[in-house]
């Protein structure tokens, strides 16, 4: 803008300068022309007087620098000329100024020289003796004058141009400076030309719109990142070249990656075959779901293509941690397999005994013994099925029992009473310690849990061992512990004894009996009752199981 203003100013001033100079020259030239004519006229008049008085001798002492003076006789022959040899000059009678002087007494003529660079003005006057006195003066023509003046005029022009350039630069800067100093952040506060105030108002309005939209966008971005950062599912957004556009920390966590480089390929996070196939499939436009194993964890990848104008421009991958689900599935599968196995063993025995009896290989006196064995195995089956039913009921969480006020101490006493017989057989003595603790709970389940704990304590005990049940009614907690002096549980197995069908000593399970579900029932029952199960054990010294309830104040 400054440049443009500068150029305009320069152009205008240069134009004005040139045109003005031209006009002035024209006027001056004209003025000087008429001035010369006047001078010639008066000079001729003075000379005429002196020539009339003194004759031709008056012209003898003319200074050399004077104008050209010619004296012409009446017949046209030249009598005198101060700049040329008069005798060699031709007859002048037919010259324009001479003819005019003969006719009117005075005459004047202007003639261009051959080179056109000069023009000569002649002024002639007839003297009283008939002779004609002619004075002439040369003047430069316009072209010559211009030629002569070009240099000084160029100097002047140059000076003018420099001056005007200086001024133009300053002026244009001054014009533009208010526009330059506009504060575009706050256009309405700036004082500038009235002409641009509508523009400023518009800028102001647009700026407000932009600010609003920006803050909207920022808020949306924040909302989005809060949502994605706080969800446990991993989210990956990739473009058609598999480059990573966006991700959340859960995704990195699930893929076991420490950090992702922006715009790196998503394959740098995981390059397993199934993941590659998923990415390829989704980028060919197919909705894909696949499972991925990362270390010990499993994660499901749900991939959706992003389509724009029916072309795949990228994909959104959702990663869901399904480790627990898979583990539970495995557990269930294991449980089913275990149950079938446990059910099959007694059934095979029953079937075997029955077959032997059927085939008549058994002596009549032994029939009772065999029937007893079949009965034992059937009892085992019933116990097992009962335990399975209990555990699946606890699993489902839908039990047909009501809560009631229960005294833990009394309940423990009853439980020990029920186990007196088996304890005697194993030569284990039972003790009950502690105080009464009455609270509201589901009695049948508590009974079941206690029974299983005490039953185990007796089963896994040494002969002459002890089982001590202690009920404590503390300030904040109620607890019941079952301690035995039995074989104990190795620390490596302590975490697993609550698993279904888990046995520390797999080879002797048959001798001890039980279904392998006892502690599993304890764990699930305790969870149902809202109690914590604690286990302290040392191999060879015994184990202590404790159930703890927090008291609600």
């Amino acid at each position, binding site marked *: 803008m400054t440049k443009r203003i500068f150029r305009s100013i320069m152009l205008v001033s240069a134009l004005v300068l040139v045109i003005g100079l031209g006009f002035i020259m024209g006027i001056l030239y004209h003025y000087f022309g008429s001035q010369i004519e006047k001078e010639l006229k008066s000079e001729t008049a003075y000379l005429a007087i002196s020539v009339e008085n003194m004759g031709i001798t008056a012209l003898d002492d003319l200074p050399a620098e004077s104008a050209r003076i010619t004296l012409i006789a009446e017949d046209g022959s030249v009598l005198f000329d101060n700049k040329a040899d008069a005798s060699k000059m031709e007859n002048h009678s037919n010259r324009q100024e001479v003819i005019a002087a003969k006719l009117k007494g005075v005459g004047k003529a202007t003639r261009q020289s051959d080179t056109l660079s000069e023009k000569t003005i002649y002024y002639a006057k007839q003297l009283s003796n008939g002779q004609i006195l002619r004075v002439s003066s040369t003047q430069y023509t316009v072209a010559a004058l211009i030629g002569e003046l070009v240099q000084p005029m160029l100097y002047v022009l140059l000076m003018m141009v420099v001056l005007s350039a200086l001024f133009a630069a300053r002026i244009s800067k001054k014009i533009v400076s208010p526009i330059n100093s506009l504060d575009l952040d706050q256009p309405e506060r700036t004082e500038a030309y009235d002409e641009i105030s509508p523009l400023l108002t518009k800028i102001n309005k647009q700026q407000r719109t932009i600010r609003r939209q920006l803050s909207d966008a920022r808020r949306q971005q924040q909302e989005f990142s809060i949502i994605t950062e706080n969800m446990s599912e991993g989210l990956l957004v990739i473009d058609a*070249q598999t480059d990573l556009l966006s991700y959340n920390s859960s995704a990195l966590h699930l893929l076991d990656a420490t950090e992702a480089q922006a715009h790196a*390929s998503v*394959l740098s996070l995981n*390059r397993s075959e199934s993941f*590659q196939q998923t990415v390829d499939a989704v980028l060919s436009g197919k909705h894909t779901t696949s499972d991925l194993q990362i270390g010990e964890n499993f994660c499901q990848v749900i991939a959706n293509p992003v389509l724009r104008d029916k072309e795949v421009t990228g994909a959104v991958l959702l990663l869901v941690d399904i480790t627990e689900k898979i583990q539970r599935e495995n557990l269930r599968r294991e449980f089913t397999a275990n149950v079938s196995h446990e059910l099959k063993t007694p059934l095979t025995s029953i079937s075997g005994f029955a077959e032997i009896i059927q085939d008549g290989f058994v002596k009549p006196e032994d029939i009772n013994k065999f029937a007893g064995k079949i009965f034992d195995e059937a009892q085992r089956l019933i116990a097992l099925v009962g335990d399975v039913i209990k555990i699946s009921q606890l699993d489902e969480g839908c039990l047909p029992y009501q809560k009631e006020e229960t005294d833990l101490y009394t309940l423990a006493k009853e439980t020990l009473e029920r186990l007196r017989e088996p304890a005697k057989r194993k030569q284990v003595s039972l003790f009950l310690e502690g105080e009464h603790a009455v609270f509201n709970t589901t009695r049948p389940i508590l009974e079941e849990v206690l029974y299983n704990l005490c039953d185990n304590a007796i089963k896994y005990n040494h002969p002459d061992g002890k089982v001590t049940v202690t009920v404590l009614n503390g300030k904040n907690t109620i607890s019941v512990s079952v301690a035995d002096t039995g074989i104990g549980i190795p620390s490596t197995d302590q975490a697993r004894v609550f698993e279904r069908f888990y046995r520390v000593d797999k080879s002797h399970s048959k001798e001890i009996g039980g279904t392998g579900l006892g502690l599993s029932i304890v764990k699930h029952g305790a969870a149902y009752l809202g109690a914590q199960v604690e286990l302290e054990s040392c191999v060879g010294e015994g184990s202590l199981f404790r159930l703890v309830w927090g008291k609600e104040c």
Partner: protein
Amino acid sequence: MRTRFDKQLEQLHVELIKMGSLCEQAITLAAQALDQPERDVVKKVAAMEGEIDEKEREIENICMRLLLQQQPVARDLRIISAALKMISDLERIGDQAADIADLAPYIVSSSISSKVQIHDMAAATIRMVTLSVDAFVKNDLELAESVVISDDIVDDLFNKVKGELLDLIRKNNVDPRAALDILMAAKYFERIGDHAVNVAEWVQYSITGIHKSDEHHLDTEKE
């Protein structure tokens, strides 16, 4: 122009990741083949080897195109030249995995593999390959260094396997042919470990600009 170059570099990166992943799968399958006498596995590994060869050519083309069209300098040039070197090592890993898979049926039928530490060797080698590809993917100097170090483990294991085989042959309770097959497989694993080290060294070169062999030169020059 620059973004186009970056895109091509990224493509090179992705293809290298894919090739590395293929190698990992091939060697994992080959190791599995030592346990399972399935013909399928051998075929699968052979197919994978073909795929790896194809990937090598593909990556080579990308590198050449990058070198000719973009005339990269400094770090970019290093990355591309390292990639060119790396793929030949990866390709060798693929070949050797296929060789192991070829031997696998004879080894399985002799049931000798449980008597020597070939499985430990396989596991250690797979770990090395995984680590070296990880080092490349993450551009991680430390990981690359750990690959170079763990080569000793594989070398030791190779010597152990060799000693165990020697004992078995001496005691004459093994089919010597199967023992030789196992020795071959062990040697292949050991070679794969060396190639993994090479890959890791090229990763180091692409990051630091100094290759292991250069260091030796520098050292000898100083002396």
